[in-house]
């Protein structure tokens, strides 16, 4: 059938199984919005307050569902406002398709009003991007973008569509949704090598990251750990991949990881690393990182093998399929000495736990745990609250901890919580700080417009807590520009937006507030007052090793 480019664009999104898109209209994308109006019974468009919020929402939708998230913006500032969102998705390998309008092809390159070279701008933060100069290429380009976004190691893809391409008429035929490239297991010869190394391990450690969630490999990971009798740790991106109450699970390791997890990893003789990329927050000083361990590394992206740490055995392949071939070849083993050692690390960790009375950060997160359903997605922003959440939140189901791991984007959480609520069709939770919340709180308008059930828990300490922590420890308590000194009444702010909320100062008040929040019809904000000098512990100082771990801190006022 003969359709306009904008109709083809929307029809192709629908054809690809996309039922919800996030975005913000503008001059050079008007035709697409006219087509969204036309096909509104088949595709749902969520209008955000800002394009950045839309990008994070599409990202959160993708993280929570595993489907490709879609965000639409106009040209120029609309497109550049997507940049942080696209980069966030890129660093965390999230499948995203971003569609931008642009000025007509005849005006491209002339610095027209709201013209920006967005394919140039996003070159290093997308898997690939496309400039569509002919409506005849539009449908196939969108299909290629979906395929690329979800194949192999997922990531964002951007499509720039000039206005005349949206207007031009062209033949369109419905096609079935594209399949991602067939996943493949690592080569047999490599699997054999890995079997040899793992079978001779005395102190194995299973270390998982976001790749395990992408590959849907949690059953295989648990089976692996069970068979070889190993503890499991994870990176920030790996949180929620396996249930937190699994007895083998030690939690996140790394800069602010669990003591037992970091210690077990450091003392392991073989680290079986699954869908991770050994970033600096994980390894600390690479020269001193797990020096006694052989690293077996499975990743779908070959460029991650030997990128930052040398593995003795690098297996390029899908984690799930590779483990399915690997596990039957391993010998079943019990390692009581090693597991006893792991337990001793755990006991030591328990001694370090913060059990103070009052509304401490840990107590706040533990109180939140009591209210979470098995399917509740918890989103965070970036900073201390993110680490407290990563350390103490409980999860039963994968894809339920949504956090900006790689880019560390303050302001990610609110958009993500909106996207997650649409994706899971359930209430979502945003744990944030007063600093991070300030970055994108305009999305409160979105949450209220669509009456989205979101519980917002602000860990309000009046400072930029994580930066302050570094200033306390490494910058002579020079609190340069980290004391917010705001007089914002967040509860009143929530009410001004049309939501509801309250402020709490004790664990009991928080518990009661969470009760109300989880039963609210719509968005509910809890302003949780905590002290400005709370620390995230333990801490491996930047560039340090496990020997430098800080587990307790007494700071004189």
């Amino acid at each position, binding site marked *: 059938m003969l359709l306009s480019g904008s109709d083809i664009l929307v029809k192709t999104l629908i054809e690809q199984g996309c039922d919800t898109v996030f975005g913000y209209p503008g001059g050079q994308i008007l035709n697409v919005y006219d087509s969204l109006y036309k096909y509104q019974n088949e595709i749902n468009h969520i209008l955000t307050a800002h394009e950045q919020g839309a990008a994070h929402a599409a990202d959160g939708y993708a993280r929570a569902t595993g489907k490709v998230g879609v965000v639409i913006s106009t040209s120029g500032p609309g497109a550049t406002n997507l940049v942080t969102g696209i980069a966030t998705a890129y660093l965390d390998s999230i499948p995203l398709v971003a569609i931008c309008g642009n000025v007509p092809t005849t005006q491209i390159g002339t610095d027209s009003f709201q013209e920006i070279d967005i*394919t140039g701008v996003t*070159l290093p933060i997308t898997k690939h991007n496309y400039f569509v100069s002919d409506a005849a290429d539009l449908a196939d380009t969108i299909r290629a973008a979906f395929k690329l976004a979800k194949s192999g190691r997922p990531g964002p893809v951007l499509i720039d569509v000039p206005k005349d391409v949206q207007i031009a008429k062209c033949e369109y035929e419905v096609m079935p949704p594209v399949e991602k490239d067939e996943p493949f297991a690592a080569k047999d010869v490599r699997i054999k090598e890995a079997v040899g190394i793992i079978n001779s391990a005395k102190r194995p450690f299973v270390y998982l990251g976001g790749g395990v969630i992408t590959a849907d490999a949690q059953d295989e990971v648990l089976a692996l750990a069970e068979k070889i009798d190993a503890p499991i740790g994870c990176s920030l991106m790996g949180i929620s991949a396996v249930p937190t109450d699994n007895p083998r699970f030690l939690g996140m390791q790394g800069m602010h990881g669990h003591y037992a997890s970091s210690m077990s990893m450091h003392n392991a003789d073989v680290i079986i690393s699954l869908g991770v990329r050994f970033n600096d927050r994980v390894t600390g000083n690479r020269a001193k990182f797990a020096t006694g361990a052989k690293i077996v590394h499975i990743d779908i992206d070959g*460029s991650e093998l030997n990128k930052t740490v040398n593995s003795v055995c690098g297996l390029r392949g899908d984690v799930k399929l590779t483990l399915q071939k690997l596990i039957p070849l391993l010998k079943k083993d019990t390692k009581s000495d090693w597991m006893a050692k792991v337990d001793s690390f755990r006991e030591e960790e328990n001694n370090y736990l913060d059990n103070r009375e009052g509304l401490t950060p840990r107590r706040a997160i533990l109180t939140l745990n009591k209210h979470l359903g098995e399917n509740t997605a918890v989103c965070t922003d970036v900073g201390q609250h993110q680490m407290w959440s990563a350390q103490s939140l409980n999860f039963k189901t994968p894809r339920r901890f949504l956090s900006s791991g790689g880019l560390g984007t303050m302001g990610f959480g609110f958009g993500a919580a909106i996207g997650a609520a649409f994706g899971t069709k359930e209430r979502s939770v945003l744990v944030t700080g007063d600093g991070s919340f300030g970055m994108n709180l305009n999305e409160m308008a979105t949450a209220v417009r669509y009456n989205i059930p979101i519980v917002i828990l602000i860990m309000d300490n009046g400072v930029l807590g994580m930066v302050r922590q570094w200033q306390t420890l490494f910058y002579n308590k020079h609190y340069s520009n980290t004391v917010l000194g705001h007089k914002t009444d967040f509860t009143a702010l929530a009410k001004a937006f049309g939501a509801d909320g309250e402020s709490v100062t004790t664990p009991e008040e928080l518990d009661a507030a969470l009760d109300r929040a989880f039963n609210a019809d719509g968005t509910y904000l809890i302003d949780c007052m905590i002290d400005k000098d709370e620390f995230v512990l333990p801490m491996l100082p930047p560039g340090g090793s496990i020997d430098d771990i800080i587990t307790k801190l007494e700071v004189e006022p």
Partner: protein
Amino acid sequence: MSRYTVAVLVNNHFGVLNRVTSMFRRRQFNIRALTVSETETSALSRITVVFDGEETAKQQLINQLYKLPDVCSIKELSDDDSVSCELLLIKMKNDAKFRDDICSAADAFGAITVDYSKDYIMFRLTDTTRRIDDFINLMHDFTILEICRTGSVSLERGSTTIRQIINF
């Protein structure tokens, strides 16, 4: 540190070179020379990259190249199994005192005189990078006015072609 030559077959689209070099820039690969040309197929271009670095960095460069959707195939070329050459144009000051020395050195290298006036002499030399380096070193004893060289192009010996490689 070693020198590696890598041939990369890419889609002959607008902006593909930019995608490749942008990746080199952001990951800070130390590119010694880079040439791009059309190939026997109009749909494909060939990029020859000469790279200085450690073996692991070279492997990382190849792995990162594979991730670009416009890259079709990659072949690492060794000196033994390939033929490489580059083109040099060099403009020398035509100084009566050194004219004979300059011309006999050019002769010894097989450089061709492509332009000549009372002020300057221009030579063209097609040879390996090493030989071109040597020739330029020799010319440094005199007055070099201008140099332009292309960077290396390389083809593997034998009847196989880079298009036959399927290493994805």
